């Protein structure tokens, strides 16, 4: 097993201390910080996503795997400067819409996007449309990811789309939506750019939207 494979395994198994220790050790051995993402962290989280999709992994396993990935990437991020600077996959402003407090699904999507190389601005839960518009403007984000778990709050996704249009930002951002009551048809009807049925689908969608 190569070092990269070892690190992948530690992340998939959710062993944060092992992931941290390995990352330190690999850096000492002279591996460049920029190599970790394409060779270990991104493939590991893609595998976590695959297992989640096949019902093999559930919320607890995905969360501890994401925590292990973060243990590694927290060490690496400050080192990704100069010659090691990594092209960011894009900046994503994410949050659970106003009136809704459901956090877990949004957190999983945020962590998986982060592990896929996106910069995440997580605004938390019960987020107003104004706050999202501000964050998009301040961070020059290219993507907005919205979550809602209640049929009564998913209507607030529409307000965000409208607020971004009113602020003249609609053509500068792509908007993706998700959450239990949300459907593809709903995403279309409110003028969003896409719907992710689960976290792995959201990562895939974010990649497509960022490339478009």
């Amino acid at each position, binding site marked *: 097993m190569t070092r990269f494979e070892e690190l992948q395994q530690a992340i998939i198994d959710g062993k944060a201390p092992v992931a941290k220790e390995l990352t330190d050790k690999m850096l000492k051995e002279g591996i460049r910080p920029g190599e970790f993402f394409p060779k270990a962290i991104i493939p590991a989280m893609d595998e976590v996503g695959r297992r989640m999709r096949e*019902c093999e*992994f559930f919320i607890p396993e995905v969360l501890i795997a994401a925590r292990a990935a973060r243990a590694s990437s927290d060490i690496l991020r400050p080192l990704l400067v100069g010659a090691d600077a990594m092209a960011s996959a894009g900046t994503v402003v994410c949050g659970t819409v*106003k009136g809704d407090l459901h956090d*877990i699904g949004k957190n999983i999507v945020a962590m998986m996007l982060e592990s896929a190389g996106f910069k995440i601005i997580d605004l938390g839960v019960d987020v107003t449309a104004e706050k999202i518009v501000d964050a998009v403007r301040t961070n020059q984000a290219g993507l907005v990811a919205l979550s809602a778990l*209640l*049929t*009564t*709050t998913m209507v607030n996704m529409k307000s965000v789309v409208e607020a971004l249009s009113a602020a003249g930002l609609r053509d500068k951002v792509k908007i993706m939506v998700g959450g239990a009551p949300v459907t593809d048809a709903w995403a279309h009807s409110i003028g969003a750019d896409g719907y992710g049925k689960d976290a792995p689908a959201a990562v895939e969608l974010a990649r497509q939207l960022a490339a478009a």
Partner: protein
Amino acid sequence: MRDLLFAQGVEFPCGGHGRCRGCRVHVLEGHVPINDAQRERLSAEELAQGWRLACQCTLEDDLVIELRQWDAAILVDDTPFVFQPRTGLGVAVDLGTTTLVTQLLDLTTGRVLAVRTALNSQARFGADVMSRVQFGVPKDGEKQLRDLIRQQIGSLIEQLIFAAQIPEGKITDVVVVGNTVMHHLFCGLDVEPLSRYPFESENLGLQSFRGQDLGWKLTGDAHVRFLPCLGGFVGSDILAGILATNLGERNDLNGLVDLGTNGEIVIGNRQRLLCASTAAGPAFEGARISMGMRAATGAISEVIVEDHTVNCRVLGNVPPQGLCGSGLVDAVAAGLELGTIQSSGRFADSLGAWTLAAPVVLTQSDIRELQLAKGAIAAGIRMLLDRFGASAGDLKKLYLAGAFGNYINRASAQRIGLISFPLEKVEAAGNTALLGAKLALFRPEEEDGSYASLRQRTEHVALNADQSFQETFVEEMVFP
């Protein structure tokens, strides 16, 4: 087809939006077109065999269909209770999100003269409280739901009067209990505050009516009271549960978990009570379980492990058709015992589905649904105990109430980690909402029915707003 079948008692778990498979019917004769929603929920094979989602079908010609659902038994209450005799007759109403139970009582003898149950007629507009709120936010929706439920309870009362053969004017008191959404919809209060964070309404108090104001055939001055709510979605059904278990009058610490369409939790003693609610019901009622159904004929209600094999008990002694809540909990407990299911919830050898008794199977995603439901309840109990500054060991008794709570096998509930208390501390308590409503009938003078002192001692905890809830919830998703 939805409207026709609903009138016959068929349930529409997702509210008739084509989001679940609960209303599937087998078309034996006649033609029913297929739409996208049905293609998404039913396999090509099922469609070819003539299975359809009733909520998605428009009828043009005569049809012969076979239903996937059977009559469900609704939990009533015949617990003996202590009372102060008074004159007249009273009606106790347990207004549940899914089911309605009414009992006519002789207030002098305490005898139950008649019982009538029904499915809540609002259920065709959504199975859970949130979809009911969504439908009720626009004024005309609110009025429609209000009129429906008032008419339905009125007609049940007429049936009680007819069954007991008593004169109409004899009923002096009606006590109704239900969760906050049922309270608001019955009383005609604005449900909009319940549609969004912080999910708190200002109109939680006692609501009083005269029978004729509601259009009910009650002559004279029959007094109708909808008992007050406790906070958030926790309503007077739980207040009634506290009365029935005497939780608020005891020195030692006790708990009540009411598992119906919603899951509500109370812990407390005579000084202080804490209550909370979680949306945990759909898994237990079968709505999101692949072969889930309510506890009715054909449902596997018990799964027992004997000599490393599973044995299933089917309600009504007919071939198995599906899995109800108690069977689901038993099946997962059995899987954990046999090593078929790991503590992470995963099938040990990447089984897609585990056959309990052909054709009934348990799938990987069914286990995931159960993990969400049991995680929420177990986390709720843990957090309320924490808030109280108590530990599981301090609890003298935990009462399990509600349709599902009453029938669940306590050992299985413990095996899956839904409850983590010694079995001798856990007691099935039946329909405590109905029992509490009956007790309230005998105490009309008690603070005028407002229960101000009890409500003052009871604090509602908004679990979702607590930062640590999410973490506890995730921890409680795994099996012990």
